[in-house]
């Protein structure tokens, strides 16, 4: 087995969740790398869309911005924000990828402030398109480092909805039914959500880590899936595609 780093493992773990023929809304960075890898490795008909308007590009290089010209290079359409967001709202987009400063046990995400909203200790960019993706796409995926300051019991500001307060809360608020967080991929594990309680649960753990390691780096009690397995390692072919074709300049995998 070839050596690989944590970022490469996370990107591969994320990519394997994207089946052929699905559609995915991505941002820049690791999510974009995961979508590009999936497209090259096992999902040639994956539809990649960007919030500023790029639809199904043949990405020549890693974009710097979700609105730069790479995001609609040889695309089927260079549209606009309403076209993309409304396509998601109509139910045509299966997956989206998000990140943030905090994520809680129900998958709610904070990318707005730490501290009081009126007098913020730290101000972050805000929702951008995250709330839109997280409200409207069928399944939300998150790639983020496992860290107890990041994985908090309750996000101090809910920028983007996860399962809010638990079962039924999204629907009660008015969000489209049967949507919500799907997978959280970290440097230690892949987590999903318990179908009954909607709480985060560990589904697979990366080689070299234990459940306790994951729990110690999480600020709330994690549930366990009925069967917790070891995360499959990246294959030679995945690593080759990732290094030679997806990110040859190591912008993402070199982090």
């Amino acid at each position: 087995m070839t050596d690989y780093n944590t970022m490469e493992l996370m990107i591969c773990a994320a990519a394997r969740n994207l089946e052929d023929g699905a559609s995915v809304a991505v941002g820049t960075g690791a999510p974009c790398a995961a979508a590009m890898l999936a497209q090259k490795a096992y999902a040639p008909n994956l539809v990649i869309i960007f919030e500023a308007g790029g639809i199904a590009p043949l990405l020549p290089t890693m974009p710097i911005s979700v609105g730069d010209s790479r995001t609609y290079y040889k695309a089927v359409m260079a549209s606009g924000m309403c076209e993309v967001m409304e396509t998601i709202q109509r139910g045509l987009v299966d997956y989206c990828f998000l990140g943030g400063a905090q994520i809680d046990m129900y998958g709610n995400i904070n990318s707005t402030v730490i501290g009081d909203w009126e007098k913020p200790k730290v101000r972050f960019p805000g929702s951008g398109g995250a709330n839109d993706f997280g409200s409207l796409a069928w399944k939300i995926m998150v790639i983020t480092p496992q860290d107890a300051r990041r994985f908090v019991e309750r996000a101090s500001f809910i920028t983007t909805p996860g399962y809010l307060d638990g079962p039924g809360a999204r629907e009660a608020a008015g969000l489209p039914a049967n949507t919500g967080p799907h997978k959280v991929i970290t440097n230690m594990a892949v987590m999903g959500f318990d179908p009954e309680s909607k709480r985060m649960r560990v589904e697979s753990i990366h080689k070299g880590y234990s459940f306790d390691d994951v729990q110690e780096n999480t600020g709330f009690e994690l549930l366990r899936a009925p069967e917790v397995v070891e995360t499959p390692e990246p294959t030679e072919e995945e690593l080759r595609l990732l290094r030679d074709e997806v990110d040859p300049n190591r912008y993402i995998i070199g982090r």
Partner: protein
Amino acid sequence: MFEVVAEGTGPLFMDPDADKAREFFRTKTRAMVNKVMTVSEAVGKFVHDGDYLAIGGFGANRIPTAVCHEIVRQRKKNLAFAGHTSTHDFQILAAGEVFNRCDIAYIIGLEARGLSPNARRYMESGKVESCEWTNYGMACRLKAAAAGVSFMPARNMMGTDTFKHSAAKVVKCPFTGENYVLYPALWPDVSAIHVHEADIYGNCRIKGISVADLELARASKRLIITTERLIPNDEIRSDPTSTLIPYYLVDAVCEVPFGSYPGNMPYEYFSDEEHLRLWLNVEKDPEEFKKFLDKYIYRTRDFNQYLELCGGLERINELRAIEHLIDLEERG
């Protein structure tokens, strides 16, 4: 009347009354006259202290950089700003402290490049009154205004703190009983959009993604266009399918070649990542940043002088090669 289920507590900076907007547009000229002027004239004439301002493009992609610089150079103040799809434009305007109210969808950040230290300090200073939204939420507000109606319904944002700090409302749909969030229409006093081609009257062509600019152009009470190049009206009329912004929406047309620099201009030149990194680095030290702003904005006469300071046509040629994926190092 809809049943209101929940209300955001954020401030509504602009009146969403569609009849008032109609009264304004009733008086806006339909005359097809030459609107070509300098950026300095356009900003002097159409951007007033206290105005609500919006900027087109997507942060560091197809942005009217020259207008942002000029607003700072003319030391406009007490503006409200649409912090929507904003990155480098926000960074410039925050550097000049020209706004004291902000609708926030995305601010401070430059996407994968990192956060602007100065813009962050400004937003944490307490000098700016703000209201939270999302990218689609702000696009809905412009879309409502562009349609001439006072609100637009959508299915996002409900149940979150983003909603609580917005000025949106959740209502029951009179047809299905489902909850919907209603976004109040936003008619900015003045906006600036950078385009590929325009004629002297303001008929505009944009290549690549339009982001939210089709809605923004139609929602704005006054509109400043900067264009990579002027083209004859005959060319517009020979291919009307390509016109995305019609002249009667436009108040000023300014020819600014390379006008999105240091941002990306699709099919023309890529973003200058080195120069954007320079901004982010120099902002760490407020004193250094002051000198930087003096050199690059306050003491420059116009955008051409800024381009010269940044490497001029030589640099632009490199960025053109990057945009077109041409490897300048590779020789046969």
